[in-house]
């Protein structure tokens, strides 16, 4: 196990280099620079722009700058944001907790709904409940989550307010006036969580249903039933435990798509997180910040995958991860 983890950690090094090299190259091939907007301000001279770009070192070829960036990274320095000169690490650590909070609650929300749904659908295979769930999950899967988010805002923020019902906030993490307490934060978390989690429900419940079905047709279930165990015990203690194992891997593998979804959801809800930070970094051609956020996403993704693999080995003695 130890050797497996070390090997996987070592493998992360070339992966990181590859990901960051590609990102750095692509970013620098897009037209523009952090100072593009200054180019259309008549009060600013071209020589000023050249001077500012030189101060950021942008006049040198990007592969050279990439190597330098990598060198700084080895010393633990992510550089400063080109937009506002704040250290990249500070900008990331300011918003990372927000994204982790959102993705975690969304994941929990989707699993809490999807697991019972999938289990009961499998237990009542080919019933109306099963068919209904099936249809609903496929439909959920097909909904673009940014659209869903906007619809939820229209309904629960605007329409509810119009109808005089208790409405939910449309944007932000706290209210501007007298906000910031726990209740206020929870209220702000509800709609983003649902928007991000609802789509995952489709994936999880479909998955659990099929692996439950597989488990339910196994010999050990027949044995369990033959022993006269209650249906509930058979479902949860025996079948689900088996069906649950592959889910661990799947959850690990879904982390990237969760972060990807978070970019859209954070934009809709003005949720000050990593996705939004990355998006704005690209729009503003803030090269150092783009690299910092990319690196963070890449590392989080690789770590999540690693943890999933390790957990899988721990939970299922039949799997030997080394």
């Amino acid at each position: 196990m130890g050797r497996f983890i070390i090997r996987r950690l070592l493998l992360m090094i070339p992966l990181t280099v590859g990901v960051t090299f590609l990102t750095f190259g692509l970013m620098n091939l897009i037209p523009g620079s952090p100072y593009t907007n200054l180019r259309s301000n008549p009060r600013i001279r071209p020589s000023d722009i050249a001077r500012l770009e030189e101060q950021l070192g942008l006049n040198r070829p990007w592969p050279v700058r990439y190597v330098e960036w990598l060198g700084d990274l080895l010393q633990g320095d992510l550089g400063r944001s080109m937009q506002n000169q704040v250290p990249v690490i500070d900008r990331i650590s300011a918003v990372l907790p927000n994204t982790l909070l959102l993705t975690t609650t969304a994941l929990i929300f989707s699993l809490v709904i999807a697991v019972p749904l999938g289990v009961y659908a499998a237990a009542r295979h080919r019933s109306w409940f099963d068919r209904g769930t099936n249809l609903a999950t496929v439909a959920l899967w097909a909904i673009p989550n940014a659209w869903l988010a906007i619809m939820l805002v229209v309904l629960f923020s605007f329409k509810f307010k119009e109808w005089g019902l208790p409405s939910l906030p449309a944007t932000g993490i706290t209210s501007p006036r007298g906000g910031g307490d726990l209740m206020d934060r929870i209220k702000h978390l509800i709609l983003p969580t649902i928007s991000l989690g609802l789509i995952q429900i489709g994936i999880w419940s479909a998955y659990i249903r099929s692996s439950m079905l597989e488990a339910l047709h196994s010999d050990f279930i027949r044995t369990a039933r033959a022993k006269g165990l209650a249906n509930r015990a058979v479902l949860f203690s025996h079948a689900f435990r088996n069906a649950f194992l592959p889910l661990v891997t799947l959850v690990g593998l879904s982390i990237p798509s969760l972060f990807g979804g978070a970019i859209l959801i954070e934009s809709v809800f003005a949720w000050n997180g990593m996705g939004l930070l990355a998006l704005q970094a690209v729009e503003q051609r803030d090269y150092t910040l783009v690299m910092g956020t990319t690196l963070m996403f890449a590392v989080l993704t690789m770590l999540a995958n690693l943890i999933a693999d390790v957990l899988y080995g721990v939970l299922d003695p039949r799997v030997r991860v080394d």
Partner: protein
Amino acid sequence: MKRFRGAALRPALAIALALGLLAPFAASAQDSSPSPTDGVIRSPTRQEIHAELQAAFAETDEPAQNTEGVYVTGVTSDLQSVNPYLVESSPSLDVVGLVYEGLYNSDPRTGEPIPTALADYWEISPDRLTYTFYLNKDARWHDGVDVTAEDVAFSLEALSNPATGSAYTGAFNEAVDSWQVIDQDTIQIVAKEPRFTFLYDIQGLFIVPKHIWENVPFEEWATDPGSTGQDPARIIGTGPYRFNSWLQGQEISLVRNEDYYEHKPNFREYLIRIYPDAEAQFNAFLNGDIDAIGLEPEQVQVVENTDGLSWQSWPERGFVYYEFNLDPSVPLFQDKRVRQAFMWALDRESIVNDIMRGFGEVATGTHPEISPGYAPDRMTTKYTYDPERAKQLLAEAGWTDTNGNGTVDKDGQEMSFEFLYASGSPTNDTLVAYLQDAWRQVGIDMQPRALDLPTLIESTTSNNEWRMAMYGFGWDATFIQDVMFGCDQTPPVGFNDMKYCNPELDEIHDQAKREFDEEKRRELLIQASDIVNEEQPVGIITFSVAIGAYNDRVHNYHESAWGNQSYVGLWVEE
């Protein structure tokens, strides 16, 4: 004054406004006739202007019933810095402009320079080269230290030094020759040229406290915690607000400066919330999170139908225009009759009413209503909707449809090309679709292509591949337009993407810059406007009308083309 994306772009417009705000002022003080005895031009005093402003707003403003409110606005991009020399974007300028002050401010009614900040008044010498500023003796830094001429001299030095990293250093050094501290409360700044635009050219001259910054080498200003906002104790200005906090990507908080020397704000805290885009900001406004916002024409109906929200509109400096590539290598638009035909083919009344929902004004000449150069009746040609005239002009220039394909041609070349514009605005998309259709009616085949703004700017400034493009723009408060039409203003110097050149026009602009007499300057502006209107190097489609909406808990809300003056009498219910 920056380029923005045409018909519908609030944030960029705000940039133009903010720059106007900053670039304080130019007219009234200098326009006042020189004193008959010594030829010196004296500005009004701070006390005189203050009394005048109070009288002007006394009629409309109700007294504040709550002075402990929180005023919340939104922006769509985070701050660049809280150091006034290191910001160029509108939200950043708006914020630093509340914390730091310059020597003068712009008149909320006219945009002219007025001494409501760190100078009590100023004098311009008879040769129009030496500006003597008499400093405001009541002003204190937020930490209680007195503001002196040494602070001003230190600020001038910081702005003139390239190491500071200010984008305005080049323009500043081109305009300023030298400066000299006369005594604790008097400083002289000497211009290189006797130009009425001088006070614009030293735009961005905010005054920073010497006692805070003197020990920081200029090259470290950008990364100093007093610039990045990470150490609020180092953010010391003189303005009506003190810097309180900046939560990156989320919120900036300013609090009222209780020791401000003049009219203190009527609310305790000013919160600026950061949104990823205009939609999220609009949602926050509808939901009551923020108090005021700029609107797109299509959003007015929603605001109209929502209880507790109101809106206002006012004419402003922005406009939407298309430009031709007039480089000699591109023969298509060399004949001015061809360029005029483009304008005759447009039904601009319909553009204003149907596409801009009434929020716009058909442009005649290059000056909007609020400019001293506004004189539609004095233009030689008034373009109306006349497609027959357009066809006739094209034919006169040799462009007819010889092969019957519906597109005019000349010497085997079809009048067919790509039309570039900025993506992201539905109003722009509709407008361009209309242009395509209207020009098609007269035999011009234009294919629209939307690009993101940096790519669009790159396309029209770095090579000659482009043919036509559409942009939004806004003149600065001098309304002198050489930045767009000057022979020497081709990219990357100015906005003359067209490579248009008319030495006669350049001469008029140059005279206008040196003319301190308002009436004479106005005549020059009108002459210049008529030349451009006749030659059509660009086609100005419409001038913009800005729309601002506010929550009814806000009182005494008024904005103008000269920037937000909410701080004058605005108050917010609890």
